[in-house]
């Protein structure tokens, strides 16, 4: 776990000078009772950047965001927004952020415009600026035709947009969006993404999502969070490179797969050669995927190897690994590593306790369930059998 966690983190964080960061999160942890929601989360966001917070549900995205907004206190660690500590200077932090929680906080009995005026007043927008700020937020979120409609009467997509407008109405330097596109139809999702992209530059944005394409489309940088830990931080492109460490090719060749595989394996940079099944493939042809390591493009060598063996090369296509694969690999690899770690710890514990004690302990804890349960149930049967035979 630590191995994977540290590897991508360091190159991303080292070049940043911490003083210039808009958001700095340092070894942040939060526990509810005994369960840890987030553990040792560290990342930073530079001004004008969009950071995507990617992770499965329950990974700790919302908790991290709530701590950043000052809504929840952290158990340990520090977080600073625009140079202010979220705990000690909570009011200053609140002045500098716009926040869209998972469920948009809307007063359904107000009109869109009335609600935005209320939020503007609440966030301390000066009287003279309110009208311009509200109309600019309405314009940006495409809500102009709904300005006098009661929020109660709006559809889910419009409510989400009102939630967004609420987060930007006071023009905050930092905007925190918790799953901004959830529950929207594809067209609205595109609108929201464009809006977020248009906000970057002047604003620093953190958005959380469990939808992968969203991150590669909108974000400059990605922090992948799983089970309360940030497992990787980098740009979407670099993350892919880091993870796969190279590019891949898909080949269609004429000839046996084994021959092609053997030929390609001769290249030291080739990591994986695998066959791809396709139903209507002509006799004698096969499809295969080659994944290579390192940054050098091996297209020339691969084609040379294939052709050099007398195989026919009919198609050769470069494939980029999508972020979805990265995400899957990260979280599943994390999972596998986790299991391996616990397995290791288990065996280490048994070793440390010593074999003579460890083995009887194993038999004591495990056997009663399996072995002694059987004798118990079989014992009466054995008793009854002789007795019945006696009676007979």
């Amino acid at each position, binding site marked *: 776990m630590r191995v994977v966690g540290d590897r991508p983190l360091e190159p991303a964080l080292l070049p940043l000078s911490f003083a210039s960061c808009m958001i700095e999160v340092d070894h942040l942890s939060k526990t509810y009772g005994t369960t840890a929601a987030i553990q040792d989360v560290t990342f930073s966001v530079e001004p004008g950047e969009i950071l995507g917070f990617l992770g499965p549900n329950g990974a700790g995205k919302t908790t991290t965001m709530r701590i950043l907004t000052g809504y929840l206190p952290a158990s340990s660690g520090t977080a600073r927004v625009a140079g202010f500590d979220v705990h000690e200077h909570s009011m200053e932090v609140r002045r500098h952020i716009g926040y869209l929680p998972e469920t948009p*906080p*809307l007063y*359904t009995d107000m009109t869109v415009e009335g609600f935005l005026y209320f939020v503007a007043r*609440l966030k301390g927008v000066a009287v003279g600026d309110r009208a311009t700020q509200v109309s600019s937020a309405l314009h940006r979120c495409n809500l102009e035709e709904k300005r006098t409609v009661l929020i109660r009467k709006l559809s889910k997509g419009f409510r989400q947009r009102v939630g967004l407008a609420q987060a930007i109405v006071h023009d905050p330097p930092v905007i925190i969006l918790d799953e901004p596109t959830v529950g929207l139809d594809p067209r609205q999702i595109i609108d929201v993404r464009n809006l977020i992209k248009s906000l970057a530059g002047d604003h620093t944005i953190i958005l959380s999502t469990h939808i992968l394409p969203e991150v590669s489309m909108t974000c400059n940088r990605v922090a992948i969070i799983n089970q309360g830990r940030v497992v990787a931080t980098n740009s979407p492109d670099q993350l892919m490179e880091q993870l796969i460490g190279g590019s891949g090719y898909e080949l269609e060749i004429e000839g046996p797969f084994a021959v092609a595989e053997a030929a390609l394996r001769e290249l030291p940079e080739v990591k994986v050669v695998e066959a791809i099944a396709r139903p209507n493939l002509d006799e004698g042809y096969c499809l295969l995927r080659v994944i290579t390591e390192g940054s050098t493009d091996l297209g020339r060598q691969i084609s040379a190897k294939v052709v050099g063996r007398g195989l026919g090369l009919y198609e050769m296509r470069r494939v980029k690994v999508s972020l979805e694969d990265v995400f899957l690999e990260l979280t599943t690899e994390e999972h596998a590593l986790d299991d391996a770690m616990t397995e290791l710890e288990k065996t280490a514990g048994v070793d440390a306790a010593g074999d003579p004690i460890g083995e009887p302990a194993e038999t004591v804890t495990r056997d009663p369930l399996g072995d002694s349960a059987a004798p118990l149930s079989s014992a009466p049967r054995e008793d009854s059998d002789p007795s019945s035979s006696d009676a007979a």
Partner: protein
Amino acid sequence: MINNIVAIVRRELQSYFASPFAYAIAGIFWLLSGFFFVAVLLGPEGIITSVASRDQLGIVDPPIDVPYQFQSVFLNLLGSLSLFLLPMLSMGLYADERKRGTLELLATSPITNWAVAVGKLLGVIVFFFTMTLPLMGFVAIAFSASTPPAAYTVLLAGLAGLMLMAASVLAMGMFISSLTDSTILAAILTFALMLLLWVADLLVNSIGGPVGDTISHLSLIKHYNNLIQGKLDTSGLLVFISYIALGVFLTAQSIDALRHQRS
């Protein structure tokens, strides 16, 4: 800070005036209090009839100050009626915010918990005040019809007493509302607590001693009756102000605690 409180007050008022529920409460309040007004003043058992029959019998001692007597009976009834209606006004103050998730907006805005609580309390007090205004109009008309016209200061003192009592009930109701997501539960609990405080002095008559004395001081009806009869004792004022301050303080604390325990 003042700006923030004003923002909250305006929002609260807006939601009351936009809600059919609040109008229903106001309607019931006006209907019943209008009935009380007529019954106390003009009814067969009303003040005017009883004074007239006294005159016929030739009883002049002790003299009766009719407007004054009327107001204290009417305001007493109004107080009891408010006891039922005020929990319904205060029940949604925080319970609705919790249910809607808008508490997260307030808690991440540059406004302190106590400013929110003060704003909300002021908002609901203003709404209740507008509810009582027409009734005070009735009383004022009745006062002006008496000869010689009664002093309006008595009316104003009575109104102030009613508002103070209402503010105390609303402040405690607001605190109870901040404890739960359920508006109904908040209303029931508030009503139970207020009923207890309303008749605290009756309950402790049997206890007696210093403990009974202390508890009887918490009684709302005792201090309320003093105020609407024009007895302006500082201890009564202090009790009401303490209730209001305690309500605001506890509300701010409970919202703070809520954020710490939220999972």
